[in-house]
């Protein structure tokens, strides 16, 4: 309690600041003030520009390849030739590689994590600001290598780089693997930084179980980033060693074993799936609490389920190889552990639903994304049960069923939580409100478009449509045409979001300090925050105790009643 009282004595709290105030965006000017910045918020913004650019690139590849598949339904318009096969193979490879390595993995930790994690801790910055800037430069170096790949003949191995195809193709495999290698360092450095920051910079009064759940999720993610990403680096180096020096590791012609590559690759890439989804789950916990305006239900179960998913996620890589010829025993063990991951995922869903019970549910745009997440993640998770079952996976492996499943999880769930989180923290990041009506229309287009695009792929895959096919038999034409139309709706929705964001930067109404009434510490400073994050140390209480925030119609936001907060905090200790 003494901590709180000291803070009270230290003077007036937060509140509204005048229009001439400085914030982290206008704190200093010039290109160098950005390129050499050590401010986690500016690094977050630089990540945002880079990662969203990558998303546009990878997304355009997707629209192009879906269009090719649509036109395939009219062979006289688009006959299949070696050229169109190559183009298709390059498009799906770049689509996957760009979006996995340059969008899904960095999006939430590098943009929202960088921006929000120190604020949530009431800290001035991350533990190692220089390392943070270095991670951004690693990202840019990796992105440059991918750009080189685009200009130097492309890549046609699929994002998985399976040997011996990847060691025998003439496309730019070496540059692409080096790109992924360097991007991996960006990921490792961010993870390392977050672990150190959460351990070292938690304020007095914030024990582990008073942390916002987003931080638990980022912590679990960081553990995976630090432990798993080096395995990818080793794998890619071995691949380069084989390609360049002809040392037989994976290529049977040189005495290697191609399935070994798959083990190495998935030992990283399966945990990476949880690098993609765990931070998104953390965002959903925040959104559920704020927009139901009450304490989350089952805080410790949600927190521990993040850790459980992170650890179990290391033990299931073999479920990508059920048809590879690995032993029946190995298959059985991997199948069993795979099913065990279903449990912590289900626990999260149930706890979020229970948080809605007796809440005060607002359907503001971020909450709509949280609700969409529950729908999409439930479908993604349940179809994972099909794939975990050995006999069903034999049939579904490498078909559109798998494509639909991982898009529901990695795109449906992760992308909706990312966009939801962006909308949630947008006022904090930029000090501007967005147009709510346009934002809701975009949400509708994305939700409908996504389900149109991908649900039908479960059926196409169950019927036997293999993935990574530039061409297909006539009986699959309906599914492909339908899916392509859906993808256009989805793309339009995403462009409306982009428009909505840019529009708000120029024309948006000034955002209040706390438009949603959340109580995590980022809402205890002005929007956007000052360079040093807080005008004074924020009051640390239960993260989801929101009853000390009162709605003020004149600013369309919430104002903090500090005495009430202290009173509520004292009550909770009795």
């Amino acid at each position, binding site marked *: 309690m003494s901590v709180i009282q000291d803070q009270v004595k230290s003077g007036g709290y937060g509140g509204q600041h005048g229009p001439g105030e400085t914030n982290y965006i206008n704190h200093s000017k010039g290109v160098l003030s950005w390129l050499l910045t050590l401010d986690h918020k500016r690094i977050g913004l630089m990540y945002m520009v880079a990662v969203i650019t990558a998303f546009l690139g990878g997304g355009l590849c997707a629209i192009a390849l879906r269009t090719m598949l649509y036109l395939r339904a009219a062979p006289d318009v688009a006959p*299949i030739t070696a050229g169109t*096969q*190559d183009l298709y*193979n390059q498009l799906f490879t770049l689509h996957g590689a760009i979006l996995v390595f340059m969008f899904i993995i960095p999006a939430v930790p590098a943009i929202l994590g960088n921006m929000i994690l120190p604020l949530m801790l009431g800290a001035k910055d991350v533990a190692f600001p220089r390392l943070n800037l270095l991670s951004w430069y690693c990202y840019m170096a990796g992105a440059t290598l991918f750009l080189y790949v685009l200009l130097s003949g492309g890549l*046609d191995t699929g994002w998985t780089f*399976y040997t*011996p*195809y990847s060691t*025998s*193709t003439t496309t730019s495999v070496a540059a692409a693997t080096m790109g992924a290698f360097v991007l991996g360092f960006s990921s490792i450095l961010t993870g390392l930084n977050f672990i150190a920051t959460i351990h070292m910079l938690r304020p007095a009064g914030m024990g582990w179980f008073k942390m916002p759940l987003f931080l638990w999720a980022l912590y679990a993610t960081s553990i995976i980033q630090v432990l798993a990403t080096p395995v990818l680096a080793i794998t890619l180096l071995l691949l380069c060693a084989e390609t360049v020096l002809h040392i037989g590791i994976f290529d*049977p*012609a040189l005495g290697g074993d*191609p*399935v070994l590559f798959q083990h190495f690759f998935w030992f990283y890439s399966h945990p990476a799936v949880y690098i993609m989804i765990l931070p998104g789950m953390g965002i959903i916990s925040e959104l559920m609490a704020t927009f139901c*305006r*009450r*304490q*989350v*239900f089952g805080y410790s*179960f949600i927190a521990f389920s993040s850790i459980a998913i992170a650890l179990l996620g290391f033990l299931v890589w073999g479920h990508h190889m059920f*048809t590879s*010829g690995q032993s*029946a025993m190995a*298959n059985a063990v991997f*199948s069993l552990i795979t*099913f065990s991951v279903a*449990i912590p995922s289900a*626990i999260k*869903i*149930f706890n979020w*639903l229970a948080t809605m*019970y007796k*809440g*005060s*549910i*607002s359907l503001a745009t971020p909450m709509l994304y949280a*609700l969409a997440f*529950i729908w999409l993640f439930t479908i993604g998770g349940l*179809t994972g*049960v*099909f794939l*975990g*079952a*050995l*006999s*069903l*996976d*034999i*049939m579904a*492996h*490498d078909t559109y069923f798998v494509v639909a499943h991982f898009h529901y999880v990695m795109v449906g769930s992760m992308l909706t939580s990312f966009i939801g989180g962006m909308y949630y923290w947008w006022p904090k990041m930029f000090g501007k409100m967005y147009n709510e009506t346009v934002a809701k229309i975009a949400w509708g287009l994305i939700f409908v478009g996504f389900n149109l695009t991908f649900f039908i792929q*479960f*059926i196409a895959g*169950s019927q*036997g449509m*293999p993935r*990574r096919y530039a*061409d297909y038999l006539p009986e699959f034409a309906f599914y492909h045409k339908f899916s392509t139309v859906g993808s256009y709706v989805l793309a339009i929705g995403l462009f409306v979001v982009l428009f909505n964001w840019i529009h708000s930067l120029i024309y948006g109404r000034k955002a209040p300090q706390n438009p949603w009434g959340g109580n995590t510490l980022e809402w205890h400073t002005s929007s956007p925050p000052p360079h040093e994050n807080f005008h004074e140390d924020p009051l640390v209480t239960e993260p989801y105790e929101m009853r000390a925030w*009162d*709605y003020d119609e004149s600013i369309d936001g919430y104002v903090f009643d500090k005495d009430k907060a202290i009173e509520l905090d004292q009550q909770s200790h009795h």
Partner: protein
Amino acid sequence: MLAILAQAEKTLFLPPARSTVAGAHDGLYNFVLWMSVFWLVLIAGVMIYFVIKYRRKSPQDKPVGPTHSTAIELGWTLPPLILVMIIFVWGFRGFMDMNQVPNGAYQVLVSASKWSWTFTYGGGENDSVLHVPVDTPISLVLNSTDVIHSFYVPDFRVKKDVVPGRYNKTWFQATEVGEYNLFCAEYCGQGHSAMVTKVIVESREDFLAYLVERGKWWEGESPAEVGQTVWVEKGCKQCHSVDGVDGTGPTWKDVFGSERKFADGSPRVADEEYIRESVLNPGKNVVQGFDNVMPTFQGQIKDPEITGVIEYLKSISTHYDGQLLEPFPVSVPAENSGSPGAQE
């Protein structure tokens, strides 16, 4: 019951079931499907109900709800846990039936290369379309000459990767005469999507006629006879006898299927992959009591010849009691009773 399921036509989700394991697969598929529908409806239903019932009345709302209950947490963890364990066991048993090649199955060699399939029968016949007799268990030995491919016939619910340097095995028993699509399911480069062919399931009489018509590939020799020729012509016999007496190298008699002990003391059963390795990379597995003197035959021996050597070793080993790759025998009994999977 399963026989009826197996004859089912194409449904919204699944293609027609045309093999003995398809019924069991489809049973589990439908169970998981309906379980998923149940959970999705329940979760979405509760979510929508709460959104309506607890919709925000005023931005001043300060609701208080329950924040934790260990009993509830454990309670709702149990049903999904039990369900996934049932599905795990069910899926595993189905997989074992799909994976375990039944005794007496008729063997066909499947060779995949960019971007075509070659199917080779015991009499030396080969073709780019797979012909099989109906109601007969067919065992497939899969090998790739270049990159990884995957053998996939949706109507039979069968898929297995075709990996260079390995002999993967799988099997199926088609239940109805007809033509079925056969896909390559593992991405293999430019022509991947064109690596599609047919499985033609025909009556036993038609199949025999087909074999006669296809002519012979190994000049009338069975693969084991090819192996014997290799043994003479490639000079294997200089060091490896077939009468049980060791020379510079161990005798070939009774090697296949036996447990080998290596110089470092580690044991290994001599299977197809061991034989292939010993031909291509002899220094890797030096048997106890012998010196590492054998040269590699990498690049000097063709894959069918290695297959021949393997079959020859099988034919002279008392440790091997399985089938040999042989011309399709007129007298093989039809297996109408089906696979282990169909007995449930």
